[in-house]
Each structure stands twice: as C-alpha cells, then as structure tokens.
C-alpha cells in the first residue's frame, strides 16, 4: 500500500503543484477560476478515458510517445511558470501587499484561456500514465484493494498539497506570497527543466550527457514518502545526469539572479543595456569557442582483420582482410565493392551497409580436357549426375571457373564483418554430350583453397565495439560541439535583441495599471 501511495503522490504532485500555482496566481489577481477548473476537468476526463480505453483493449501505453508528450508539456510548463515568476517580480514591489481588484486591469480572456490550457496540459502530462497505473492497482488481484487505496490516497494527498499552495497564495497577499514562495517556485520550475531533459532522453530526443554524476539515494531513497515529495515537487531524481545538472543550473542561476538581485544594486537602464550587449558578445564568443575547440571523437577503428575458416576459429584461411576505400583486399586478391548494391542493414546491433560481390574468373593453365576416370575422381568417386559412361564416353572439353563470393558489412570506413566462399565450377562439353554440363568441384586444379571463410569473430567483436564507441563519441560531439553552441548563439541573439530594444513590459501578462 505504501508503494502505491508513494507512486500516486509523486505522479499527482507535479500536476497539483502547477495547477495550485496557477490558481494562486489567478486568485491573487482576483481572477475567476472557471476556465482553469474546466481545463483540469477536461484533462482528468481525457486521461481516465484513454487509460480505461487502453485497459479495455488490453493495449499498453506507447511509452516513447508518452515521454514525448511529457517532454513537450514540461517545457511549456517551464515557460509558463517562469513568466509568472517574472511578472510577479516586476510587480511585487508595486503591489505593496494589497490585493487590488481592479476590473480594468483584469487579465484578458486570452491569458485566462492560456492558463486554463496550461492547467489542462499539466494534468494531462502524467494523466494517461497515472490513469493506467490507477486502473492496474484496482484490478491487481494480489494485494487487491490496499494497493488501489494506497494509490488513491497518494493522489488525494497530492491534490491536498496543491490546494494548500493555492490557499497559501490566496491568504497571503501577492507581494508576500511571492517573496516567501518565489524561491520555491523557481526551484519547482528548475525541477521541471530537469524533468523535461529526462523525458527528452526517454523519448529518444536527447542522447548526450547521460553520464550519472551523483548518487542521491541518501536524499531521495526510492520508495519513501520523502523521495516522492522531493522528486514530485522539485523534480530531483536519485540518479541525476550531467546534462540534467547543467540544465538545472543554467535555469536556476539566471532566473534566481534576475529575481533576487538586490534592488539597490540594479544597474541603471543604460548600464543594463550595455551589460546585455556585453553578455550577448560573451555568449556568442563562447558558442564559437566551444564549436571550434571541442575535440573531435578519437576512436581508432581496426584497419585489418584476420580470417577464419567457417566452423573453425583458427585463423589460417589466408591473408588478412583490409578495407581500402571501395576495395576489399585479401592479400593479392582485390574485390571491388563499388558495383555491388549496398543495402542498409542492422548487423550485430549496428547500422551498416550490406554488400554482396560475386566474381567469376577463368582459371588459367587448367587442363582443357578431362577423361571419365578423372571426372569420377573429381566428383568424389562416382560419375556426376548427368554424365553417362554409355552415351558420354568423353574425353570432354573442360572449362574451369573460379567463383568468389564475398559478403561484407561496412559502417563508414570500417569493416564490421565479412564472410565469403570460393568455389570452382567445371563446364563440360563434347565427348558425347549434346548440351554442356556444369558442376561444382571441391578443389581447384591449381590447388588453391576453396570453401567458406569468415572474418575472425574476435576481430568482428573488436570492430563492433570500436564502432559503438565511435557512435557514442559522435553523439556526444554532436551535442557539445554543435547543438550546444547553437543554443548559446540563440541566447546571444536574444540578449542582443533585448539590448537593442527599449525596455518593454513583460510580453505575456499585461502590466497592471496602478
């Protein structure tokens, strides 16, 4: 029961918090909450409907789609909560603790609907998952009602907490509410940033920077009420990743600074403008610097691989394999891969190109004539099917062809895997044969080897490991050396724009006329 209570509490808290903040904000401004409640009710109904529908058709929630939804909604929530915090910062001082109920200054219909939409999304974010979970606890036969009761109590507790926040916000006047709870709100929003990054990873959008940097099990021991509260409210997980910490700091520090910088120390508008301009230049320089100086992925791919005989791991099947551009070299034999059709294929769990090359070469210097007895010897003691000693007494005209079939899997410039076989065909004509016969023989007249070979398994494993390491390194490089500089550059552009523009009121929530 405790376990389901904790999950219920944690899942419910995130939505309850955002709805509570929106309610407090609206109340503080003397707005009505109808639209917001409508949004919440619609989201709950939709969640229960989808959850129940999935349970009915016994389908699982598409987890990756759910994570994408969570990621986008969390990002939107971050923007909303931040805008609310900034609006309050701007007006907290001016409000002087009074709740003004000035009809002229009311929020526009649009803003109220936007906040209702935010409440809708906040509930929807974990709503599907929570509904599925709740239905599972109710139908779970093993611990039956206790599990369901626990989950329901957890949800109820989270709703109560949200309600308390809204009430607290309403009781206190807006100015004090903000001063007391501003830090808390910024931490909640920073937690949402962290949750956005986590769902982005789970959705498969963000693969870089997933190194675990700390073990917070001591703080948020899984399965405890404390962990549910801390993770649910502040978004702090037990296993924070590098990218999550960076995102958290990158949000928390500037927003907190903007909000709490002592009024007395604020620069005058001209200095502020100059400061923004300088920061823009600094960010741009940082972006360029990182992009230029971030080290390229350094992974050494093996450039040659020994061969083994099929069904045997000994590596005596001739010279090493070496991939040189479009040529596969096997000692003196070179196989041109350019003409072969390259099919993209996952091989050994890696994306690769599959090519099959067949070559036929006439064997020079092989006997041009063969008699029945030699033929029987070649075919393993009996005459091959289709050659009758009565009708085809021989000797036959013999044409020998060497067949080389090579299958390779390459990834970029690297040889991932290869296999092949050599065979010799003998074409017989004359000697009583009306139409020619073709047969495969096991040994070439020159004595060269025939049969199947494979790239040595250890070499394949080594190549696969190296390619995986390279892929990881490329993902990291793509993010740190390409995507991050773009983000920094966009920040620089935004700063430059704000430095050039005149001071304007916060764009989203219209300034209250005092």
């Amino acid at each position, binding site marked *: 029961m405790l*376990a389901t209570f*904790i999950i219920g509490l944690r899942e419910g808290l995130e939505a309850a918090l955002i709805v509570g903040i929106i309610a407090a904000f609206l109340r503080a401004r003397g707005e009505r909450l109808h639209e917001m409640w409508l949004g919440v009710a619609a989201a709950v109904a939709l969640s229960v409907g989808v959850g129940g529908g999935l349970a009915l058709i016994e389908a699982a929630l598409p987890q990756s789609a759910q994570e994408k939804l969570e990621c986008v909604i969390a990002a939107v929530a971050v923007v909303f909560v931040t805008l609310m915090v900034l609006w309050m910062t701007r007006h907290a001082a001016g409000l002087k603790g009074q709740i003004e109920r000035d009809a002229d200054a009311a929020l526009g219909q649009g803003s109220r609907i936007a906040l209702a939409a935010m409440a809708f999304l906040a509930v929807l974010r974990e709503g599907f998952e929570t509904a599925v979970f709740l239905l*599972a606890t109710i139908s779970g036969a093993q611990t039956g009602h206790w*599990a369901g009761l626990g989950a329901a109590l957890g949800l109820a507790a989270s709703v109560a907490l949200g309600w308390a926040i809204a009430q607290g916000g309403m009781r206190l006047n807006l100015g004090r509410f903000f001063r007391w709870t501003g830090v808390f709100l910024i931490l909640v929003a920073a937690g949402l940033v962290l949750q956005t990054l986590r769902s982005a990873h789970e959705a498969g959008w963000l693969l870089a920077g997933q190194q675990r940097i700390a073990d917070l099990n001591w703080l948020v021991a*899984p399965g405890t009420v404390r962990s549910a509260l801390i993770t649910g409210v502040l978004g702090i997980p*037990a296993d924070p990743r590098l990218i999550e910490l960076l995102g958290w700091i990158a949000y928390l520090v500037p927003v907190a600074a903007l909000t709490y910088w002592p009024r007395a120390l604020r620069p005058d508008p001209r200095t502020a403008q100059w400061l923004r301009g300088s920061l823009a230049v600094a960010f741009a320089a940082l972006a360029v610097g990182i992009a230029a100086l971030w080290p390229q992925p350094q992974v050494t791919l093996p450039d040659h691989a020994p061969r083994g005989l099929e069904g045997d791991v000994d590596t005596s099947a001739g010279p090493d394999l070496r991939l040189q551009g479009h040529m596969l070299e096997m000692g003196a034999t070179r196989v041109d891969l350019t003409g072969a059709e390259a099919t993209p294929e996952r091989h050994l769990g890696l994306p690769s190109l599959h090519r099959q090359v067949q070559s036929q070469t006439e064997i020079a210097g092989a006997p041009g004539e063969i008699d029945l007895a030699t033929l029987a010897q070649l075919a393993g003691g009996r005459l*091959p*099917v289709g050659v009758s000693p009565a009708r085809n007494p021989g000797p036959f005209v013999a044409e020998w062809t060497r067949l080389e079939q090579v299958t390779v899997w390459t990834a970029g410039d690297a040889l991932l895997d290869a296999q092949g076989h050599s065979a010799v065909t003998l074409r017989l004509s004359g000697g009583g044969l*009306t139409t020619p016969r073709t*047969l495969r023989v096991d040994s070439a007249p020159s004595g060269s080897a025939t049969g199947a070979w494979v790239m040595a398994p250890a070499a394949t494993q080594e190549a696969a490991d190296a390619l995986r390491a390279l892929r990881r390194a490329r993902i990291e490089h793509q993010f740190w050396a390409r995507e991050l500089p773009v983000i920094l550059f966009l920040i620089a552009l935004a700063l430059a724009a704000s430095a050039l523009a005149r001071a304007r009121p916060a764009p989203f929530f219209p300034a209250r006329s005092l």
Partner: protein
Amino acid sequence: MNMSPRARRRAIPLLAATALFAQPALADAPTNNGAAQVAITLTGENGGACVLDHDSAAAGPITFTVTNESAPAISELELLSDSRILGEKENLAPGLPASSFTVTLDGGDYRIYCPGAAEDTVAFTVTGESKQRAQSAIGDLLDEGTAGYANYVEGMVGAMVTASERLAAKVDEGDVEGAKAAYAQARPFYERIEPDVEGFVLPGTDPTDNSGNLDYLIDMRASNLDPAVGWHGFHAVERDLFEKGEITDETKAYAAELVKNVKMLADLSGGIEYRPEDLANGAAALLEEVQSGKISGEEEAYSHIDLVDFAANIEGAHQAFAFLEPGLKRIDPDVAETIAQRFADVQTMLEDYRDPDALGGYKIYDAELRKSDAVKLSRAIQMLQEPLSRIAEKVATAS
C-alpha cells in the same frame, strides 16, 4: 528461431562478456507467440534486485514481462542500448499485475536498468541477426529443392525394386503375357531417374568397366553390348519375352540378377545428397536419352514401348526442374518460365500418343510411327533442351 552455426559461434565472446556480471549465463530465452519471452522479477531482497530469468535471446521480437514481487524501492525499468532507451516500464509497484513490453532487437549487448536496485544494471545479450536476406533465400530454396528431389528419387528406387520383383515373379511363373505387362510397368521407374543412379558401380570396380557398372548391368541394350560382359538386365529379359516369346532358365537367371542389382542400386543410392546442378545436369541427360535412345527406337528394340520410356524420361526431367523452379525463378525468371512452358508443350504433344489398350499406356513405337513422327518428336525435345542446358551453370553459381 534457428541460429546458424555461425551466429552460435558469434555468441561465444558475447556470452563470455556477460559472464563478468553477477548473474550466471543462462540459455537463450524460449520463444512463444513469435517473440522470445524474458521474465524480469523485481524483489526487495538484498537491498532490491532486478532478476532476469534469461539473460540472452535470439534476435527478433522479444517480450519483457516485468513483475514487481516485493521491491517498493524499484518502480521503473528501462532497456538500454548505449544511452538509447529502447523500452521502459514505469509505476511498477509490488502486488500489481505483471506488465510487459515487446521490442525487436538485433544482435548486440544491451542493458536492463532498474533504478533503486542495489545492482541497478543487468547485462542482456541478443545473439544472431533478426532477418534473412533475399540472396541467401535463393540458396535455401535450392537446398529445399534438392532435398525434395532426393525424396523423389528414393521413392522411385523403392518402386523400381517392387516392380522388378513382380517382373521376376511373373518370369518365374513362366507367364509370358504377365511378364510382358510387368516389364512395361517396371520400365518407367528406372527411366525417370536414370542419370541419378547410372553413375554407381559395384564396390571395388572401375566406372569404365562394364562388368562393374550397374547401369550396364541393369539397362544395357543391343546397341551398346559389350561382348566381354554380355547380356544383362531389363533388355535381356525383354529380348527373351518379346523376340523369342518364351521364358527359359536363362530368362529366369536374368530376372533374378536384375532384382539383385536393382536392390544393390537401392542400397548404394540411399541417402545420397544432390547439389542443385546435379538436378539440372540430370534433366539435361534425360533429354539426351530421349533423343539418342527413344526417338531412334533402339532402347526398346523388341517391345517397342519406347514411348513409355520417352514419357518417363520427360517426367523425370520435369520433376528435377520443378524442384529447382522456386530457386530458379529468383535467379532468372524468364528462363524458368520458358522451360516450364516447353515442358507443358511436350506433355501436350505426348497426349496424342496415349493408348490405354497398349502395353504401358502409349502407342507402340514401330517402324511406321518412327518414320512419320520421329522428326516432330525430336524437334519438340530440342526446343526444351536449349533453355534447360543453361540452368546448370545458373544454379551452380548461385549460392
């Protein structure tokens, strides 16, 4: 899901790597409903554990079924490849029904991540490849064909033993008419598969020595009589029955020897494996048989049931081709279609020569019929020979 020997060998180093982790290496997960089934149990013992019933599976769809038995601290589980999350389950509380997710995985190393467990990462290995390509399918189709053809040959050899025993019985009874009918019934079995079995020699003899050559001993005729070895087999019996019209002790000896040699052939040819080109070369040889032995009328010089042998040769060649056809359609659909059409043409033509009252079901191929129809018959076979002679090379080089 069958693993190729190669894939199985591949699995060795991967499994060896897995063995470094705490759990022992287990067998590949069993397959059910087309997906490998892996059960994961979360327990609260030893600070929380995430236990897999199988730590490897063959490539393809894999269903992970997660049950939280008693681990309040573990409520989430992820399947990872490097840093990519391929599948996950959340909100796993103890006592809840098991939940599952299915993913299609290729060979490689994966991790199961259970945040909150004492040992929160468990290795999972997938072996082999999840799909087959069309190229290798040609080889598979041809292999299926040769295996099917081997069954066909075995069936014919078995029937030939029975039919020659029946012939020998009639000969022993001294029933000339009965023996003639039994002779006509026994002939087609050998004629259908002759190229596959004519290469056998008696143990320890030279293939060019007729005294040890089973084809000679079973199917020699006047035109290829080796005076050193003399008369043997089917045609020796035929000569006595149809030319002399009587059964002598010598006839009985020929028949008994025929049964012995046919049985020997059955022993030698049992379990023989064919290569695709054997089927093609054999079919080509059967058509040459038709041209050289049947149309000329020299095969059945006394009974004149050459058209029975003719039909049997065509049927044997058609069977060999039919077993190659699925693979050949992939290699060269045009040739496959042409040959199928020409076989149909020859069959249609043969319908005109059917005679239910005649011995063996076909018209007697006497001098008159030979004179009027030999050219026509020969031309129809030529039309078939030309495309058929091309397929041995095609199937021998396609692997």
